[in-house]
């Protein structure tokens, strides 16, 4: 077990290295010149050249990458071009917000999705099932921006149950998490529904019923765990999405997460920040997947670690 973990950690490091290398390459394939973005419109060619030299952008690509890696091993993510601050500090400042939103969002998503999926599977073909199906499609077809604003209108402006914007208290996290949860729950609901339909036809569910167990226990203790494998995988995937891809919701609710940082950095070609965010979210994704792989055998004892 420990050995396996060790192996996966080494693989994780390799994946991160791969991500770093590809990202670096891609960023330098961009025609946009970070030095010019920093220098702005009034700068003379000399100023631009100076900035480029100071940033080390005039070095060969490999040299740049190498020195980046050297910094990386020492835990140094570099300095932002535009903000002239440690990238590590910038990311660390936003990490708590991202992690909180991730946890809350996934919580809502999974809770809602699993619940709806189970209900739909039980009431298969019925009205409730249709309704859940509709709802899940509304969720995935809704543009995030509009959905977020609608929720904001209803719950923050009209009802004033929650603050409109900001970060700090539990009330603040409710709406963004709800938005993400509602939009993402459709996936879970559909996956759970189809897995549950399969499981509910299995003999062991029949056995459980023969024991006279409550429907609740049959569904949630006997059937659901057998349908959870894809959900676990989905959570692994979602961790990645949340680490880098919730710009819109963050923006609408003024949530100081990493998404906004990344988005701004991309606009400004602030390579160190892009690299930093990429690596951090890559790490989260790999860890998420690792977690999913480790949890799967716990849920299904038949899957023994290979």
């Amino acid at each position: 077990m420990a050995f396996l973990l060790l192996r996966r950690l080494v693989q994780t490091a390799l994946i991160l290295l791969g991500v770093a290398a590809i990202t670096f390459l891609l960023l330098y394939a961009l025609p946009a010149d970070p030095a010019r973005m920093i220098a702005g419109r009034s700068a003379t060619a000399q100023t631009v050249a100076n900035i480029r030299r100071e940033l080390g952008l005039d070095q060969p690509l490999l040299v740049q990458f190498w020195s980046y890696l050297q910094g990386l091993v020492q835990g140094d993510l570099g300095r932002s071009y535009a903000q002239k601050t440690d990238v590590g500090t910038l990311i660390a400042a936003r990490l708590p917000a991202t992690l909180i939103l991730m946890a809350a969002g996934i919580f809502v998503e999974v809770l809602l999705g699993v619940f709806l999926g189970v209900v739909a599977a039980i009431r298969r073909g019925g009205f409730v099932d249709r309704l859940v199906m509709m709802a899940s499609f509304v969720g995935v077809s809704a543009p995030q921006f509009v959905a977020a604003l609608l929720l904001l209108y209803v719950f923050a402006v009209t009802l004033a149950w929650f603050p409109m914007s900001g970060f700090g208290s539990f009330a603040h996290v409710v709406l963004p998490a709800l938005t993400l949860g509602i939009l993402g729950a459709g996936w879970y609901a559909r996956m759970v529904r189809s897995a549950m339909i399969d499981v509910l036809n299995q003999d062991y569910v029949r056995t459980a019923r023969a024991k006279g167990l409550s429907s609740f226990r049959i569904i949630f203790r006997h059937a659901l765990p057998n349908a959870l494998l894809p959900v676990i995988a989905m959570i692994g995937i979602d961790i990645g999405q949340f680490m880098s891809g919730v710009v819109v919701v963050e923006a609408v609710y003024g949530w100081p997460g990493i998404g906004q940082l990344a988005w701004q950095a991309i606009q400004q070609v602030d390579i160190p920040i892009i690299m930093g965010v990429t690596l951090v979210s890559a790490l989260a994704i790999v860890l998420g997947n690792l977690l999913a792989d480790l949890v799967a055998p716990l849920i299904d004892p038949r899957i023994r670690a290979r």
Partner: protein
Amino acid sequence: MTTAAPVLGIDGLCVDALTPQGPRRVLDAVSFNLMSGETLCIAGESGSGKSVTSLAVMGLLPKASLRIASGSIKLEGRELSKLSNSAMRSVRGGDVAMVFQEPMTSLNPVMSIGEQLTEAIREHQGSEGGTASAVALRMLDAVHITEPARRMTQYPHELSGGMRQRVMIAMALSCRPKVLIADEPTTALDVTVQAQILTLMKELKREFGASIVLITHDMGVVAQMADRVVIMQQGRIVEQGDVLPIFRSPRERYTQELLAAVPRLGAHAGTDGPPRIAATAAASVPRAASPVLSVRDLAVHYGKKPSGLLGGKKLAAAVSDVSFDIFSGETLGLVGESGSGKSTTGKAVLGLIPFDGDVAIDGQQIGALSQRQMRPVRRSAQMIFQDPYASLDPRMAVGAAIAEPLLIHGIGNRSERTDRVADLLRRVGLGPDAASRYPHEFSGGQRQRICIARALAVNPKLIVADESVAALDVSVRARVLDLMLELQETMGLAYLFVSHDMAVIERMSHHVAVMRGGRIVEMGTRRAVFEDPQDAYTRALMAAVPLPDPPMRKSA
């Protein structure tokens, strides 16, 4: 005989199977009563509707495919078929408990044995965790499972077929139900355990006044257990009555046939091999110089391989020091305690699980072969798995499943394959319409026959048959066994024949090996082992075989 109202009364029960072609009647006007403290045995043809009847009583018919068309089911005068779901819940498990036919798929793969046992106890007796698990442990002990405490923490896939069956029984008995419906409860058990289980059920009946519906193919069990007997065929009850009259003077033709077909231990005493079936076969095929299957020092460990760095789990051998040869045209019968490693041996000799030691099929060491190199070997060596349902792809029509080995090994063209499938189905006693149906639409015995047909499809040289006739009623079983013998004679097939039914072993085997605790404790010719058993365990096995004769029970 009391005149009191029956505990369970079934009257005119009709069940339809819903098919794309419209409803098909699988139960037709079934009526019988179960009196308090009585044991009612249902015997009959495979696929005759025994399991469907019991499912109907439990209210557990699969909604998607089976539906009660008419009739009533009354428990102590209460109509069950009209009960609400929640009212039915307290009946299930508490008043009526059931042991299902297929233990492999009837246990939840992701829950530990302990949890599956205790939850029912808690549900119906409201005992706290501690007492519930104490009860569970006691029940496991009562069904004679080895190391019951360890089993509590294990998962179904880690248990042998027989162990799972015993878990199922323990589960059903743990709540002390008024009515116990047991669908082939002892099919997968060796006879010594079977005897113990049957005793247990009798005790239960005596202690708690429970009534029992016992579905079984084993006329020995019927004779030993039944107060009354119901004989079913094609969804109908052909005969019912007290056990003695039925055994003594069966009225219906089918009942007569059924009883006539019952194999009796010792029927073949004094002979060396199985009886000859095919008149056309050569008088005697000379024994080949080299064996079809040669096994030396086989050992199998379950669990993780120890990994160099930090060490893995400590491994217990499920099988060790197993060596034997099987020559073509011969059968090695493998008997033994449940969990003794029979299935494990069977899987290992076909290279389906990792093993240590040497296994040679047709002279070829399989340990070192790649998947590709294995393929021709697979054609000549087939396996019939202990659990037919689990070993069939639920999404593949039965016809396709049987044709699959043909396809895999590139035998015949499309129409030849269709013909071959139809032929095989006929030979194992299934209608040609079976080809287009799916595994879940069959009875346990029918599925077993499908698996046999699939193994026979490619005309292999060696078949590992793991309890492969356990779920068949005696008449079909006799036909299937005859078929297997005939193939052996005509084509020189070799069998590794795993069974707990001593009569069947006696009928089929040239040689017999007895396993216990992962080792072979006794091996020899059939005659030697059956007529002069050396090992104490073998002797116990012989003694425990139930005799299909009610009066003898009384005098015993």
